[in-house]
C-alpha cells in the first residue's frame, strides 16, 4: 500500500514505530503532487525543498530522542488564506499575489509548533468568496472524482488535495460552508468547529463573525487529531473561546449511547436532488440500526438563512476588504499610467470646456484607490463589496443589516430549541453533487443557493461536519452533514465516527480511471 493511501493516524504510527521517515512520507506526497496536481490544480504553491527540509529536521530530532510535536513529520496542506511568514499568502487574489505576512497566523504557528510539515498552500475562491473555487484569480481546481466538475469551495483546493491523496490533512476555512461543502463534493471529511473554537488571528478575514478554521481529512479520527492541534484560546483573538480543548481522539471511538438524531423537515424540500436525498435517508437508517432515535424537527427560520447570510457576510466583507487600497501593501496600480490617464482626461475636459466634469474629476489619490481595487479584485469579490456597502448605507442599514442580525438571532434560537430535543442534527451538505465547471458561472444567485444547508451553522456559530455517505450513479460523492450544539465537537466526532465505522464510503478513492482521464 502506498504511503499516500494511509490515514494521518496510521502515518503517525508508522513514524512512531520508525517504519517510515517523515522524509519518505513527505516525498511520497510531493511525488503525487508532481504527477497529479497539474490536472487537479489543488495547490497554488508548493516548495518541495522547504517541505523536505522540515521533514528531515523532524526525522533528525526524532532520532536524537528530542521532544517532538503532536503532528511531527506529518504533511499538512494549508489554505492560502492563513498567514505564514515563510511563504506568500495570496487569498487567490491579484490583490495579494505577492503578499508575504511578517507574522504567522495562530493556526500556522500551532502547526509549526506541532512539527507538522507544511507541504503547500491550497487554492480557493478569491478571499474565500464562492462555492466552486472558480473564483480563484490564479487557477481552476478540478474535482478528483470527475475533472470536468468543480471541487466545491471556497476550500476547493483543501478538499481536492485530500481526496486526491496529495496530503493526508489539510486546513480550510468555513464562512458559509466553505469546508463542509467541498468536503461533501470531494468525498472527504470536513469539519467546521464552533465559532471561536479556533483562533482567527492571521486568517485573512472574509466575514469576521462567521469565519472559522477547521480540518479536512480522510477520516473523522484524522479530523479530530488535527482539530486538537488547531483549537484553543488565543489572547490575540478577542472572539476566541476560553475553554479547555477536549482530547477528541481519546473519546472518538466511543459510540453515543441513546443518540437522539434530529432530521430537519425543511431540509427535504423542493430542490434536493433525489440521489442525494436517498443517500442521506439511507444514512439515517444506518444510525437507526445503530440504536439512534430519529426525530423530525423544524427550524422554521432556516428558509431565511441564505438571505440573512448574504446580507451579513458581504457587509462584513465590504468592511474587511477596505484595507486593500493600494496604499500600504498589496496591489497598487501603475503610477505613471495613472497620472497619464488623469492628465489626458483633464486635457480632454478642458478642451471641451466641461467645468462640471473637471470639478468632479478624481484626485490622483482617489483614482489610485479606484484603479488599484478595480484591478486587484475579481468580479465576485467586487459584487460582494458592493452588496455589503449598500446594505450598510445610511437609510438601508435598518432594513438590511439590522434585520439580518435579528433573523440571525432567531435562527440561533431555532437551533437552541431543537437541541433541547436532539443531540445531533443530520441532513444533506448540498442539494446536488458536484456541478460542472462553468455551469453556474453566469448565475451568481444559483451559486449562492449552494450554501443552503451549510450557512445556518455559521450564522448560529455551531459546529458541523461533512462525512461521505454515498455516491451518485455517475460516481460523484455525496456528503452527510451533522451539526451539534456549540462546543459539542466531541459529540459531533463520536456521532460521525459511529457512521464511519458502520460504512466504508470514506475508504473509497477516486479511481484510476478518473486519475488517468486526460484534459
Amino acid at each position, binding site marked *: 500500500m502506498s504511503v499516500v493511501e494511509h490515514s494521518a493516524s496510521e502515518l503517525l504510527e508508522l513514524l512512531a514505530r520508525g517504519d517510515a521517515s517523515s522524509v519518505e512520507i513527505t516525498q511520497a506526497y510531493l511525488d503525487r503532487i508532481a504527477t497529479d496536481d497539474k490536472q487537479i490544480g489543488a495547490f497554488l504553491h508548493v516548495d518541495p525543498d522547504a517541505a523536505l527540509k522540515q521533514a528531515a529536521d523532524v526525522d533528525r530530532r526524532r532520532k536524537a530522542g528530542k521532544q517532538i510535536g503532536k503532528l511531527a513529520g506529518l504533511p499538512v496542506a494549508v489554505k492560502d488564506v492563513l498567514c505564514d511568514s515563510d511563504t506568500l499568502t495570496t487569498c487567490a487574489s491579484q490583490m495579494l499575489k505577492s503578499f508575504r505576512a*511578517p507574522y504567522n497566523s495562530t493556526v500556522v504557528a500551532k502547526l509549526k509548533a506541532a512539527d507538522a510539515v507544511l507541504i503547500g498552500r491550497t487554492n480557493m475562491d478569491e478571499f474565500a468568496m464562492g462555492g466552486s473555487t472558480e473564483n480563484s484569480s490564479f487557477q481552476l481546481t478540478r474535482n478528483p472524482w470527475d475533472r470536468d466538475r468543480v471541487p466545491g469551495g471556497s476550500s476547493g483546493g483543501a478538499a481536492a488535495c485530500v481526496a486526491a491523496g496529495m496530503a493526508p490533512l489539510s486546513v480550510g476555512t468555513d464562512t458559509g460552508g466553505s469546508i463542509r461543502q467541498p468536503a461533501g463534493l470531494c468525498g472527504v471529511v470536513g469539519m467546521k468547529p464552533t465559532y471561536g473554537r479556533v483562533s482567527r488571528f492571521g*486568517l485573512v478575514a472574509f466575514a469576521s*463573525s462567521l469565519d472559522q478554521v477547521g480540518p479536512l481529512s480522510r477520516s473523522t479520527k484524522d479530523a479530530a487529531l488535527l482539530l486538537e492541534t488547531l483549537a484553543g484560546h488565543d489572547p490575540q483573538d478577542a472572539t476566541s473561546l476560553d475553554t479547555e480543548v477536549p482530547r477528541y481522539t481519546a473519546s472518538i471511538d466511543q459510540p453515543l449511547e441513546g443518540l437522539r438524531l434530529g432530521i430537519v423537515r425543511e431540509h427535504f424540500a423542493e430542490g434536493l436532488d433525489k440521489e442525494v436525498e436517498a443517500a442521506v435517508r439511507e444514512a439515517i437508517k444506518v444510525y437507526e440500526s445503530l440504536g439512534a432515535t430519529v426525530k423530525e424537527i423544524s427550524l422554521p427560520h432556516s428558509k431565511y438563512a441564505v438571505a440573512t447570510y448574504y446580507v451579513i457576510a458581504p457587509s462584513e466583507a465590504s468592511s474587511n476588504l477596505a484595507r486593500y*487600497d493600494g496604499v500600504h501593501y498589496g496591489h497598487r496600480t501603475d503610477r505613471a499610467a495613472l497620472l497619464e490617464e488623469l492628465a489626458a482626461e483633464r486635457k480632454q475636459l478642458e478642451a471641451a470646456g466641461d467645468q462640471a466634469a473637471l470639478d468632479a474629476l478624481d484626485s490622483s489619490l482617489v483614482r489610485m484607490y479606484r484603479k488599484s481595487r478595480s484591478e486587484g479584485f475579481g468580479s465576485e469579490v467586487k459584487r460582494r463589496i458592493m452588496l455589503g456597502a449598500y446594505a450598510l448605507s445610511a437609510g438601508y442599514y435598518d432594513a438590511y443589516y439590522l434585520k439580518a442580525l435579528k433573523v440571525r438571532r432567531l435562527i440561533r434560537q431555532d437551533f437552541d430549541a431543537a437541541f433541547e430535543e436532539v443531540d445531533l442534527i443530520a441532513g444533506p451538505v448540498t442539494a446536488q453533487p458536484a456541478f460542472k465547471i462553468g455551469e453556474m458561472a453566469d448565475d451568481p444567485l444559483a451559486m449562492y443557493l449552494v450554501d443552503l444547508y451549510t450557512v445556518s451553522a455559521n450564522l448560529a456559530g455551531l459546529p458541523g461536519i461533512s462525512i461521505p455517505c454515498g455516491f451518485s450513479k455517475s460516481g460523484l460523492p455525496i456528503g452527510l452533514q451533522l451539526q451539534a450544539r456549540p462546543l459539542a465537537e466531541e459529540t459531533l466526532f463520536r456521532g460521525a465516527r459511529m457512521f464511519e465505522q458502520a460504512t466504508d464510503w470514506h475508504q473509497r478513492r477516486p479511481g484510476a480511471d478518473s486519475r488517468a482521464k486526460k484534459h
Partner: protein
Amino acid sequence: MSQTYTTIIGLEVHVQLATDSKLFCGCSTQFGAEPNTQTCPVCIGMPGSLPVMNREAYDLSLKTAVAVNCEIPEFTKWDRKQYFYPDLPKGYQISQYDLPMSANGYLEIHDEKDRFEPKRVRITRAHLEEDAGKSVHDEQAGTADSEIDLNRTGTPLLEIVSEPDMRSSAEARAYLSELKLLLTYLGVSDCNMQEGSLRVDANVNLHLDTDEGKVATPIVEIKNMNSFRAVERALDYEAQRQFRVWQETGKKIGDSPKQTRGWDDAAGITRGQRSKEESSDYRYFPDPDLVPIIVTSEQIQEVKDALGELPADFRNRLIREFGLSSYDTDVLVNQGREVVDYFLEVAEHCDDAKAACNWVTQEVLRALKERESIISEFAISATNLAGLIQAIVEGKLPKTRAKDAFELMMVDGIDVASTVDRLGIEQVDESALESLCQELLDANPKIVADVQSGKPQAVGALIGQAKKRNPNVDPGRVREICLKLAQQE
C-alpha cells in the same frame, strides 16, 4: 442696525488617554518617535490581524466619564466608522456609534472674573475610539508626495461631546479649561495640545430675534484650533462672520448643509473646506472582531469611590476649611493637584492658612515660573515653607527678613532654623533697639529738628542706617521709636 444675536456653541473634545500602549495592540503611544517605528500588524491593519482591547484605556475612559457625571450603560460595544484615507490603514476607524460607553453628563463652569454666571454645560456623550495616523504633505519639496506616519494610529482617544450649552467664547474657554483641569487631576491625559493629546472642534451658530420670530443660522463646525486662545478667537470671528453672512444672504439653518471650516490662526479667519471632504456616509456597523463590554454597577461604584477629590471638591474645601477667597481658591486649584496638595501640606503644618495661601500663590508660583519648574521639583518642601510661616507667626523671624530666608531656602533646600542661623537673624531686644535709635538721632540733629518742625517723614533716612548697623531690626519699630524719641527731645 442693532439686531442682537446669541451665539450657540457646542464642543467636541478628543482626549488622548495616557496609556502606555495603544487601544487595540501592544505598541507604544510615546510621542515623537521616528515615523512608523511604533507599529505592528494590528495597528497598521495587515490582513488577518485582529484588535484586542486595552483594558487600561477603557478604565481611564470610565474614570473620566464618571468624573464628568455621565451615566454608564451596563453594555457598550465597538463600531466601525468607514472611510478611505491613506492614514487610516484598515479603511475604518474602530469607534463607538449608537451605544457609547457613557452619556448624559455635565460639567460646572464659572468665571473667576465673573464675566458670566456659573453654569452647567451638559455632556451628550463620551466614547472611546482609536486615532488615525498622520499625513505629512510635503508640498515644499515640489514632488507633491505625501508621507504617512502610523505611530499615532490606534492611540486611544476619548471623544467628549457637549450639548450646545455655551453662549460665548469665554464660556467655551472656561469649559475647556475646567475639562482640562479635571483630566489633569484624574491623570488620564497629559492634555498637551501641541502634541495633539487634546483636540477641540467647535460647532457654532447664531440664534437671532427677527420680525419673523427666532431664527437660527446654519451650523458650522470649526476645526484646526491649536490652543484655547485659538478656540476663543475662532468662535468670536465665526460669530461675526455668520452674522455678516446672515445679513447678506438671510440663509437659515436647513437652507444649506452643515459646513466645516478650518481656523487659520495667522490670518485670524475661518475658511470653508471643500464640500467633498464633508459629506460622508460612514456605514457604521458593530465591529465583529471585538466583544461588547459589560460593566456592573459595583464596578462603576468602585470607580466613583476611587476618584478622590476633584477640582470642584477642592474649591469647596479650601473655602470652607481655610476661609480662602474664591479667587485664591481658583488660583490654587487651577495650578493642578500637586500645587493644591502642596498648599494643604503647608497649611497643615503652620497656624496661618491665609499666609500659607499667600506664600504659595505669590512667592512659590512666581519662583516656579521664573525657573520654568514644577512644584514636585521645588527646593522648599511644604514642611519647610510651613516652618518659615510658623517662625513669622511666632515672631522668631522678622517679616522683613522672610523673603531673604525664602530665597536662601530655595537655593540651599535647608529648613528655617538653619536659614535663620545662616542669615544671622536674631531678635533685637527693645532696649538695644532704643539705644540704637538714640545713637542715630544724636548723630543726626537735622533730622530731629525736621521731625520737631512737623516733618515726620525725615526719619526715613535713619531706617536705612539702622538696618546697616543691625540687619535684624524691624524698620517699623525703628520708625516708631525714632519718632517717639525725637519728639521727646
